[in-house]
């Protein structure tokens, strides 16, 4: 009996009455951690982890930097998008825009269309086109989620990507997003929350997405204009793009077809225009979503003060990098949450502010509750939130310690919370591939399927990110789509996925044995008796053993047990 931890955890809690429950078996515990700290189990993984020790596996996941994964590293080398800088991506975008613009200017409509079609083909087919690179980013995200040994890290990257959501199709975010995901988020996913917060605040992707790049101190416009005149027309800093006029394809799930943001001369002129004043967008979301939470006790005055403190935090378009511009920074003093920020300290004011926000009790509670909603229950239990907040205080916001506290919390192991969550489309697709030892191929087709199931990657337009609750994902059309996905995958007919069922379940004429094998490999032994009977009945008129196997696997993955985790 390896799994004594949950029992230990219970002993540590004094005042948390939990429903009486039978102790979990090692197999149950292994299945539970694999469904919450990983994208589900691969065949045989539950037994292996139960055998080696569940908490040993958990600790290994928390110390993910020690988990070497040379096979994944090999796969990653094939994805150019992981090795291209923001600046190179921006160059690709600008070159493409210039081409489209040239084409648009052609008077003869047939010739114009021909050239535009050529550009589109080039965008779609080219290995290094912006559109191709963005598609690669989606694909490599699935490859990592399915095949990485550092599963908990993949889960946390997904969690933070939604917590600090950026919409990849918003103008400049197309070239900036890959770097944001791979360095800003992934680089801090298990570090200190404060560092993650500062990294996102300084990322060109976030600065553009929530408009802080165009937020300037009221009146600094005129100051700048005067400076420009004084400098004989030389701008003190490169133009900051509004760039928001471009929205090539507002429908989520599909990337812009021509892969280009056409830029008209008037738009270009607009881009040269200095920004006009204070923009509260980032300031508000910073407090409401990233740190304190909507009930975190801040006022509209705090939002304005935070926006003023962060004036000057912008993007240097020349280098596609963060820059602080003192010329547009608000130098007056400000007051946030009762704290005085005296003026004239430039960028340091913002740094002080972010550190303050990162360590507010409301922030600890808000972010801990979200982590508990991800790992424990859609409605996070108070007990595990408290444990997480306690660990946050003790560790100074070390995400690893906060997550560790949640995983050791009795709530995490309570039977009421086991299988209590519904998988998101991403979790469903990735866990389905893992369950049948499948792999994504190098095309974007599987990622497109995730989009069709309702979660187009990096395309949540609003700053709140994809939801974590079952009502965000469960609707009648969506469930049917999952059932169809399952049948297609099990039949080996899923575009974008490579599946070989021979490696998972042996072909047999014995239907009862077949179902038992499918239950073990795909559902980790969680199949209900009713499901077993239904599948058995449906197999009765399927004489071909390979078809019977595909049907059994398809029904298991498309069935109700597999939708939960």
């Amino acid at each position, binding site marked *: 009996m390896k799994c004594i931890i949950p029992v230990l955890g219970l002993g540590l809690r004094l005042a948390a009455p939990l429903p009486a429950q039978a102790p979990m078996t090692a197999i149950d515990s292994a299945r539970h951690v694999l469904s919450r700290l990983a994208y589900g189990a691969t065949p045989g993984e539950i037994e292996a982890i139960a055998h080696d020790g569940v908490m040993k596996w958990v600790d290994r996941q928390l110390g993910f930097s020690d988990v070497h994964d040379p096979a994944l590293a090999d796969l990653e080398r094939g994805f150019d998008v992981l090795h291209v800088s923001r600046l190179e991506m921006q160059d690709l975008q600008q070159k493409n825009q210039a081409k489209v613009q040239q084409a648009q200017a052609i008077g003869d409509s047939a010739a114009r269309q021909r050239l535009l079609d050529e550009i589109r083909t080039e965008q779609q087919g080219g290995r290094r086109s912006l559109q191709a690179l963005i598609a690669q980013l989606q694909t490599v995200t699935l490859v990592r989620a399915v095949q990485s040994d550092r599963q908990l890290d993949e889960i946390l990257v997904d969690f933070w990507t939604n917590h600090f959501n950026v919409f990849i199709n918003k103008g400049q975010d197309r070239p900036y997003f890959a770097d944001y995901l791979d360095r800003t988020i992934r680089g801090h996913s298990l570090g200190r929350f404060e560092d993650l917060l500062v990294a996102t605040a300084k990322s060109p992707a976030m600065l553009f997405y929530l408009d802080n790049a165009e937020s300037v101190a009221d009146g600094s416009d005129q100051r700048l204009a005067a400076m420009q005149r004084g400098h004989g027309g030389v701008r003190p800093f490169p133009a900051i793009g509004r760039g928001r*006029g471009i929205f090539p394809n507002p429908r989520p799930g599909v990337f812009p077809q021509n892969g280009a943001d056409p830029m*008209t001369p*008037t738009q270009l002129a607009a881009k040269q225009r200095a920004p006009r004043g204070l923009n509260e967008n980032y300031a508000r979301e910073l407090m409401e979503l990233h740190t304190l939470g909507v009930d975190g006790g801040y006022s509209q005055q705090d939002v304005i003060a935070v926006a003023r403190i962060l004036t000057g935090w912008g993007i240097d378009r020349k280098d596609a990098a963060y820059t602080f511009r003192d010329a547009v920074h608000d130098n007056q003093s400000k007051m946030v949450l009762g704290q005085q920020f005296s003026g004239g300290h430039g960028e340091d004011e913002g740094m002080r502010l972010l550190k303050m926000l990162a360590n507010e009790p409301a922030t600890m509670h808000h972010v801990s509750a979200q982590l508990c909603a991800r790992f424990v229950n859609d409605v996070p239990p108070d007990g595990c939130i408290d444990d997480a907040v306690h660990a946050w205080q003790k560790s100074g916001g070390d995400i690893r310690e906060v997550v560790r506290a949640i995983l050791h919390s009795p709530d995490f192991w309570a039977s009421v919370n086991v299988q209590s969550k519904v998988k998101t489309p991403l979790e469903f697709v990735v866990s389905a591939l893992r369950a049948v030892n499948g792999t994504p191929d190098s095309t974007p087709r599987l990622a497109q399927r995730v989009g069709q199931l*309702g979660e187009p990657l990096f395309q949540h337009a*609003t700053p709140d990110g994809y939801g974590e609750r079952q009502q965000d994902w469960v609707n009648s059309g969506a469930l049917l789509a999952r059932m*169809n996905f399952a049948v297609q995958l099990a039949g080996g007919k899923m575009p974008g996925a490579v599946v070989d069922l021979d490696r998972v379940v042996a072909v047999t004429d014995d239907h009862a044995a077949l179902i038992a094998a499918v239950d073990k490999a795909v559902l980790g032994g969680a199949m209900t008796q*009713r499901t077993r009977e239904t599948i058995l009945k449906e197999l009765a008129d399927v004489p071909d053993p390979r078809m019977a196997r595909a049907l059994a696997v398809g029904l298991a993955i498309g069935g109700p047990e597999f939708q939960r985790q």
Partner: protein
Amino acid sequence: MAISRRAFMKAGGLALVSLGADPIFLDRAAYALKTAGGTGSARKTLVCLFQRGAVDGLSMIVPAGDPWYWQERSRIALPKEQLVSLDGMFALHPRLAPLKPLWDQHSLAIVHAVGSPSTTRSHFDAQDYMESGTPDVKSTPDGWANRYCNHPEEHASTPFRAVAFGPQLPRTMAGSAPSLAIDDLRTFGMRAAQASGEVKLTRAFEELYQGAATGLVASSSAESFEAIKMLKTANPTAMPPANGAVYGKSKLANSLQQIAQLIKADLGVEIAFVDVGGWDTHVNQGADQGQLAGRLDELAGALAAFTTDLGEQMRDVVVITMSEFGRTVKENGTSGTDHGHGTAMMIMGGNVQGGKVYGRWPGLSPEQRYEGRDLAVTTDFRSVFSEVLQGHLGPANISQVFPGFDHPAKVGMFG
């Protein structure tokens, strides 16, 4: 277990129990019975058509009587002789001519200079605000149509009450009230190479979910199989267009045809949603020919087919078009228009008092424009939506549908 409505009516309902119908289906069958007969059915449907990308309202509904229109648009103004005159001041784009009969029958109303109080010129933000129904508030989790559907009405007994055509549920319909996203009615349900395979898979999954699903997964899956059954029984996609209506081949035409089929099959659609893109005409917008003309051609053709197809039933159906904002009054350097502010909406069908352009016309002279460049907004889009909801679908709690919008202005489209 499919059962036709006629069989149910013959059997007088009780026989259903012995046929093994589940309780939900019993509700649905009873519902279908109640609304059967077609004539005099009070079932009301609202169809929302979102023109994504910001349509140039000044080309769609041309303010021909405003001299500034001609002055500012030397290259893209429509040829005077081709305009379809409405009331002396306004005219339809020539490609919208198929809608003129509706205007003449007083079943097409137009609201001009309509839009959002938000000053954003970002498609992203403006669409979000129009769909959430809360301008400048980004944290609103659900869409206005879904909040409307939260009221406990009899429509709740059909999974087709709120249906969006497309692969995903649009923000307008997102939220806690059940709503269906259907990409294409013909492929909704289980897919297999053979029909027998579809039947088998549907039966198998239904039994699996009845046996082992819990909570929301159980109720939603029951909705799915219910919807499949209702579609199978009613078989709406087999209905040919009526009254000689000819739908085009576009995605929009296809979606509108399927919405008409759902309405004719009396499946209880209360709000249907469809979107159509291609309105972001920064470059070479064209006039009577070209980019925008092509899009309007498709729009008018699909709408005309839809209203023709439904014929008398349009009495119970209102279609409203919407777009996140309008475009600049003055054409830009590349014979297009840039992001603006106010635009126009069309409302047709039901009891709308058509043949009239509603909303105060602010004028197009530079000082009358919003920030000197755009058509000003004189009617809040929420006033129009509120009036359509209340005037067509029936009483609605407007402060719940549009939180923070306490005083909708009277537009007058429904008297």
